[in-house]
């Protein structure tokens, strides 16, 4: 870190601003260098991160929850550098977030409305949970409005949208086979947004913090892969970064839960680990302030950062087919091809299984619920507005 230069920047008045925010100098320097590292930036960018905090007005953010479990909200609370308190008090104006905001009902809606109208084009919209498109959006309503109706208004008026978790990114669990709500991710519900997908179930709060700091520092979203996921978090395959990789290459596999290999921390590939088909920085940053991660505890990866993992990665305890055979000598390209093949094969297998199961289920109880809803389509905006679903006995709140 270029400490001398940083010293100058601090003398230029930034320090005074930070002191008013009651951030200790030590904490602040640590935070800036941790962020520079998390974003895989050269250390000279630390200075730019310092400068970003100089602004007097904090950029606004609204966090909407649709078909969610609040797991991503909780994961945001677990962010350590910067912490949730630092983010909401010092870095951003966190204006709407149902799980933690003070007001309810109309007062809460005012917080959202004020941001959308007064910060138009300048705020960040965070979406947690999938958006159900079936039955005119009846499967998720807030204040009598459907999720898609709210998302259309809030996301199209935002500077950018951050989809947190696999549900908001790709549909996630409500979109898994057997679901009837027509759930989709934000990119499918509202095409054309400036959007980043922080997938995983839930996404790691540290990656959210890094994305927000990137936005604050450079006024733009980080670079993404072809699925809209940030490269700093999804640029590497878990299998390639895995601390147990040497055991894979050496053919040392856990064969049975609790066997000697399991107790020695060997490779979990044969126990169904989906690390060879999953792109995430789990092994590098780990979870809960870098304490541990699923493979580190002795359970395989379930592939939660990948689209459709509830269908393509299940059964979770079945080894991925066609992955074996490459060792340290294989090229990255060959590995990539092998994995694409594996995922495609799984998708096919599952689709066949679903059809068989559907027929069986229908025969047994004529159960309509097992039939997958029509592939969800992004709705025509005008039609949606016209047909906005109303709560029976809808009444105005006083």
């Amino acid at each position: 870190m270029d400490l001398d230069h940083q010293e100058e920047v601090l003398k230029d008045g930034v320090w005074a601003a930070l002191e008013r925010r009651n951030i200790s100098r030590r904490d602040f320097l640590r935070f800036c260098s941790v962020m520079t590292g998390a974003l895989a930036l050269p250390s000279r960018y630390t200075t730019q991160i310092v400068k970003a905090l100089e602004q007097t007005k904090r950029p606004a953010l609204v966090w909407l929850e649709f078909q969610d479990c609040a797991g991503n909200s909780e994961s945001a609370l677990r962010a350590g550098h910067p912490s949730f308190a630092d983010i909401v008090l010092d870095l951003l104006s966190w204006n709407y977030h149902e799980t933690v905001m003070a007001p309810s009902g109309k007062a809460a809606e005012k917080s959202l409305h004020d941001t959308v109208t007064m910060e138009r084009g300048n705020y960040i919209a965070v979406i947690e949970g999938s958006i159900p498109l079936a039955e005119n959006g009846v499967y998720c309503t807030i204040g009598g409005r459907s999720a898609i109706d709210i998302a259309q208004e809030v996301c199209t008026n935002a500077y950018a949208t951050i989809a947190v978790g696999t549900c908001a990114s790709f549909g996630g669990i409500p979109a898994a086979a057997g679901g009837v709500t027509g759930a989709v991710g934000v990119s499918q519900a509202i095409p054309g947004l400036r959007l980043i997908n922080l997938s995983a179930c839930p996404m790691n709060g540290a990656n959210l913090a890094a994305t927000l700091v990137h936005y604050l520092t450079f006024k733009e979203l980080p670079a993404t892969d072809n699925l809209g996921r940030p490269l700093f978090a999804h640029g590497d395959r878990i299998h390639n970064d895995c601390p147990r990789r040497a055991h894979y290459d050496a053919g040392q596999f856990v064969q049975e839960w609790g066997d000697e290999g399991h107790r020695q921390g060997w490779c979990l590939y044969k126990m169904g680990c989906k690390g060879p088909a999953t792109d995430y920085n789990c092994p590098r940053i780990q979870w809960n302030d870098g304490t541990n991660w699923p493979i580190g505890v002795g359970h395989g990866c379930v592939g939660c950062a990948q689209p459709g993992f509830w269908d393509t990665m299940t059964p979770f305890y079945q080894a991925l087919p066609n992955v074996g055979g490459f060792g340290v000598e294989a090229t990255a390209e060959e590995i990539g091809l092998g994995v694409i093949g594996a995922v495609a094969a799984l998708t096919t297998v599952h689709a066949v299984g679903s059809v068989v199961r559907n027929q069986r289920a229908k025969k047994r109880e004529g159960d309509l619920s097992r039939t997958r809803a029509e592939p969800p389509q992004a709705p025509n905006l005008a039609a949606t507005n016209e047909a906005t679903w109303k709560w029976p006995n809808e009444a105005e709140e006083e």
Partner: protein
Amino acid sequence: MTRIAIDPITRIEGHLRIEVEVQGGQVTDAWSSGTMFRGIEMILRNRDPRDAWVFAQRICGVCTTVHALASVRSVENALGITIPDNARLIRNLIAGSQLVQDHVIHFYHLHALDWVDITLALKADPGATSTLAQSISTWPKSSRTYFKGVQDRLQAFVNTGQLGLFANGYWGHPAYKLPPEANLLGVAHYLEALDWQRDFIRIHAVLGGKNPHPQSYLVGGMATALNLDNEATVNADRLSLLTQLFQRGQDFVAQVYLPDVLAIASFYKDWAGHGAGLGNYMAYGDYASDVQNVPDTFFFPGGLILGKDLSHIQPIDQQQVAEYPRDTQRVSEKGENA
């Protein structure tokens, strides 16, 4: 007669709408509705039962882990599987730490803003807050300087004019009963608890790989590998970390959370009469001291209380648990409400 709808209800997990009918200043009728549906039960059908817990866990990310535990237990129960004793202990540690963390988060980050008026904290005398804090607890962060620092941070935040999560709150409403110094104490511990919950729940990372949604359950046991001498497993170093985390957790609960609950409750004694409902209560109990997961061995025993009769706790008959979908919001195939 006025009908009021409050939607969204915030600081809960999930989507809730409450409608009330008010006549002469009294609530005469009320309706509550969950306004979000995912259909996890339908998605789970016909899947591999060993996978079920991963799905079930996603029912809730605030009370993470408990639905996973219920799911593996039900599969084990159906198949007559007895888990190893170490698995029982690890499950109890994960569930127990979840219970503790959830209580603290619920009190400070979800519920406290109904009792603590953060704007009044600005009017508090930090010295009086220090005196109050030291009168109810031995928690070391209780000096005048400390509370002055919290107040200054809050004042700097308010001075920006961007109140964020706290904008449009019900500040100044007469239902807030705490004196200024107690409000400042509440704000300080709201912030401390934000840091505490992040630290304490590392227990889940050690034993379950991560939180939210720990990932070490297995039908038949736990995947948590124990080997004191191996770097890659739960080893002596990890056990020592666990000991520290439990100790810090216990300190915070005993010296901050419980004294605060009692102190704040003393200003809201009339609330004790709210929400009794019909007076029928059921708790299944948990934390088995036996691998068979038999209710008789639970550290927290379960039972049934009928008609507020606390002197007579009846056993639960699982066969009597039933679902009544009568009031479910139904939607016809055309998308109309039926």
